[in-house]
């Protein structure tokens, strides 16, 4: 959709299965969320189910979102600054793919990826900053990092190019049918992804009338002129967190780590959890009882 069409279209509500209308094999796909938080996991699972292939995934701080897509063979190439399962251990599909040399990858420092998205969102071909001087990134990726002199002071700076994904995938708390998006907690750089990408697909916990957004307009972080499609998908970030709505699911994360340990058991993971409907997925990970526990835990905090 052109910007004008995104503004004209006041009903962008779709179903998970509709993402194939916007994502094609070979696309550059930026994945929202950061750390173990707010990743668009239902969309990631749907990409695998829909057998979309040869994607160039882009993440700033990825975790299970990236590991799943690598393991399922959806990616031809990956841009990242960090892929980690943190306390759970190393992301095994990602490791295997890199160590065996099967996955092309662009390791870019974290601030540079964000800056590249910001450049695209502002409509400029590059942005300068006090980049990773002295690191091996400058040698490893000379096409990405350019040392330039400030035209005013002469000071050395590092310039990075605009990064323009074809599609950005985001999960958030709430949207209206027109695609205004409310984010309440951990947001990563989702707004910059939305600004940089040609197309933006957002899953949300709930789709509500626009009047509901107007009650708390300060929560609306992505206005509708960026957004192409909104899909209602409760627990769409599971097993990552969507604070303050629910915490991540440590029990399922441990299960995932066990099953991602070898390619054979990972294949069973895909069969048992991914290659079925999203409703069946939520049943398989513990259903309503488990989801209610994760919601309750998000409120069970002890401040000192």
């Amino acid at each position, binding site marked *: 959709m052109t910007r004008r069409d995104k503004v004209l279209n006041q009903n962008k509500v779709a179903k998970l299965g509709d993402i194939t209308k916007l994502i094609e094999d070979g696309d550059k796909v930026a994945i929202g969320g950061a750390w173990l938080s707010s990743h668009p996991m239902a969309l990631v699972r749907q990409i695998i189910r829909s057998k979309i292939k040869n994607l160039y995934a882009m993440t700033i701080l990825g975790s299970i979102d990236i590991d799943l897509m690598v393991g399922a063979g959806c990616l031809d190439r990956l841009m990242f600054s960090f892929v980690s399962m943190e306390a759970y251990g*190393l992301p095994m599909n990602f490791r295997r793919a890199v160590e065996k040399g099967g996955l092309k990858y662009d390791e870019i420092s974290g601030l540079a990826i964000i800056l590249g998205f910001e450049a695209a969102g502002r409509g400029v071909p590059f942005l300068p900053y006090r980049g990773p001087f002295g690191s091996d990134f400058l040698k*490893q990726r000379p096409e990405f990092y350019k040392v330039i002199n400030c035209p005013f002071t002469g000071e050395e700076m590092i310039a990075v190019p605009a990064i323009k994904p074809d599609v950005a995938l985001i999960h958030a708390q709430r949207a209206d049918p027109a695609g205004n998006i409310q984010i309440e907690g951990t947001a990563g750089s989702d707004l910059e992804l939305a600004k940089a990408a040609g197309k933006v697909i957002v899953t949300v916990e709930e789709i509500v009338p626009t009047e509901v957004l107007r009650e708390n307009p300060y929560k609306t972080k992505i206005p509708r002129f960026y957004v192409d499609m909104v899909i209602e998908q409760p627990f769409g970030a599971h097993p990552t967190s969507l604070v303050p709505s629910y915490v991540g699911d440590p029990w399922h994360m*441990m299960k995932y780590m066990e099953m991602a340990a070898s390619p054979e058991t990972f294949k069973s993971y895909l069969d048992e959890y991914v290659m079925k409907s999203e409703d069946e997925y939520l049943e398989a990970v513990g259903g309503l009882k488990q989801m209610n526990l994760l919601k309750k835990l998000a409120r069970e905090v002890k*401040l000192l």
Partner: protein
Amino acid sequence: MSKYSDDYKPAELMCVAVAAEIEDGDILILGSFTPLAFVSYLLAKVTHAPNVMYMAYSSVDARPFRLSFATYEAAATKGGVARWNMTECINSLYLGVGVDVEPISSIQTDQYGNINLSVVGDYQRPMLRGPGGAGAPEVVKMHRKMLGYFPNHSKRTLVPKVDFITGTRWKIGNEERIKAGLRPGPIKLITNLAILIKEEEGRPFKIASVHPGVTVDDVINNTGFELAIPKDVPETEKPTQEQIRILREEVDPYGMVAFDFIPGKERPAYLKQILDREIKALGY
């Protein structure tokens, strides 16, 4: 009765040493969940540095919280005065104002203080692919002081030259740093054996202190690069009884601080028992 504790775990000593590097008035960012660093931040805030500002996930000026594996992010978020996304935190704090300290654990560090979070072995076909540096490549040069921590001080972690420079202090030595527009401040490594400090470009890391029960030779024999040894090497200050009480009763009742010291194979079981105890304590 001595104010110092004799009943502490190695992880607790390291945690207290990291916390001691945090000064009141510092600005700190909590991101990737690194248990020992998190506990150090929380300990500093509830003891000697109550005015420290945390940026945690999207939460600005988060209140300190009891560390729980299931709920740490929710707790950090609930206690904040504002919510900023990652871009706002990075542009305003890392690049603008300057974050003060951020203890980083890496795969390797070397005699220059470079850190490697990327690969062991060849870059294209590595023996080990690490997680990557996140923001470290840009920001470790900007911190008030650069802080590395290693629960496994050995010739495999403290190497002559890292396989890949993910992050670097870039300018070492206060004069050079100020000339480059950076804040003065050293590189410090806090390990399970000792505290090492590097203050000048051309001079090696110096042993600042050795932990109780560790000899200078232990440190030399486990370090892959040359060290400067002062005539009198002090002993690292032990945790106080009060610090240990606060750690175990208030900040970290489930013992998350020891996580980095647990061998990789045993970590899932360790996490599982922490989780079980947390859930039981909540009455579920």
